[in-house]
């Protein structure tokens, strides 16, 4: 048991070390504060601010949309349709969607965009990422809500509360740590995903000014930089990877702290 725990910890540490060592020569403040110059494919100057901001835009947009749909869906599945055929069909579909490779979402989004006449853009990327995040978020929330025993909802109904009041006041609160966890899982998958944004969001050296501009993202920055024949640019890929890693790690730590705070009122 200790060995396997050490193994997991060891692989995390070794990933960070390898990325850090290979990216160290390219790591600098300007990586974080400047947009890239000279093209993402060949550029040796400037930073990857365009990709950092781009990823933040993409994930913030996608997560907002996905969350707005996920919470009501999960509450509905549990309080209104818990044992119905519709619910089990919905859960099954979501599980399949969860395991669909992200490139499929990318291609699907791209097809829709071509049909609607939208170019690769922030909007397209947000849509594709939201699709990718949705099943993860709904199922994660759903699983936590399913664990809530009748005993906890009963006092609410006994006071004359409706299903909606019980769902919003009791279920959502009790499931709050799970809701946060579901969001983190989705954000983590979304921010690191290259395939779904490849066709839908495009790539650019600048920061988008509207929803219809193309947008850069960290995983794609890494992908393009690593694909060049120049060692200096490859170093920059590792540096980008390191920045992405740090962002994901700090998100994870932040959500842990948040979850701890959110569990204060939860009934065990």
């Amino acid at each position, binding site marked *: 048991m200790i060995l396997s725990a050490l193994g997991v910890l060891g692989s995390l540490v070794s990933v960070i070390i390898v990325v850090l060592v290979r990216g160290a020569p390219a790591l600098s403040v300007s990586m974080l504060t400047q947009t890239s110059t000279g093209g993402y494919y060949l550029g040796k100057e400037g930073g990857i601010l365009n990709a950092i901001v781009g990823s933040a835009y993409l994930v913030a947009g996608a997560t907002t949309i996905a969350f707005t749909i996920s919470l009501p869906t999960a509450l509905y599945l549990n309080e209104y349709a818990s*044992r119905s055929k519709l619910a089990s069909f919905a859960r099954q579909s979501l599980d399949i969607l969860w395991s669909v490779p992200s490139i499929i979402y990318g291609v699907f989004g791209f097809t829709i965009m071509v049909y609607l006449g939208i170019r690769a853009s922030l909007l397209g990327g947000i849509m594709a990422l939201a699709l990718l995040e949705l099943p993860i978020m709904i199922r994660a929330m759903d699983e936590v809500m399913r664990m809530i025993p*009748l*005993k*906890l*909802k*009963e*006092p*609410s*109904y*006994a*006071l*004359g*509360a*409706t299903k909606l*009041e019980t769902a919003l*006041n*009791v279920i959502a*609160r*009790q499931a709050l740590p799970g809701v946060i966890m579901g969001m983190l899982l989705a954000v983590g998958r979304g921010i690191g995903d290259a395939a779904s944004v490849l066709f839908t969001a495009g790539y650019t050296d600048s920061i988008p000014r509207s929803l219809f501009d193309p947008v850069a993202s960290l995983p794609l920055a890494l992908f393009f930089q690593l694909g060049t024949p120049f060692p200096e640019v490859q170093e920059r890929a590792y540096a980008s990877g390191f920045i992405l890693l740090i962002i994901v790690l700090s998100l994870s730590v932040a959500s842990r702290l948040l979850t701890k705070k959110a569990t*204060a*009122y*939860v*009934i*065990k």
Partner: protein
Amino acid sequence: MKVEALTKTHISVQKLNVFYEGHHALKDITVDIPEKQITCIIGPSGCGKTTLLKSLDRLIDLTDNVKVNGRVVFDGIDVLDKQVDILDIRKRMGLIAQTPNPLPMSIYDNVAYGPRIHGTNNRKELDQMVERCLQVASLWNEVKNRLTEPASKLSAGQQQRLCLARALAVRPEVLLCDEPTSALDPISAGHIERQLFALKQDYTIVFVTHTLRQARRLADYVIFLYLGQLIEHGPTESMFTQPSDPRTKAYIEGAFG
């Protein structure tokens, strides 16, 4: 018979049958529950005590695959009628569960939950309501400086008193108690018992218990259930001293249970 003549019926159960997935849990129960008295439902475990209690405000609807027929007449309304505003009925019947079940929120919000969902949002009014209910449940002095703390931080005995305060906050007429002291230590149990005893002036109390001594201490009226059947019911004294059915006699003497 004298007691019955003096009191008004508050809830009248008529030919109530309950089936759980084909299992006949309550068989043709017909009994009147007197107003502003403590009625104890006694009987061995699994005899349908809780089922009867939860049929009164139709909380039994929350369980899957249940079929209920018959009538439960409360204040002239048939509770089992699907057209009835069951939310209003539930508001008028508070529930104290077997194990304390605080809601996942602060002590204050637990008590304010009921009034809030029924439309009271005035902070001052809520403050007064919370203080009054916590005082009636004799919990106020212990929690008045920590109202924003999670309810789950209270001890089991305090939680149960909180649940009592929460039930009182919607101004019910009936209190349904499902063995509310069985999960508590003797001191906390005594607290709850004394409060309920005092509350019978204003509330009709239906109290499920499998402790005969508790029934004898608290009850004005006793209902004895056995295997889903109503065996006997009557004023406490006559039930305990002159039971007419041999099964009641055997149960009261401790022959089974």
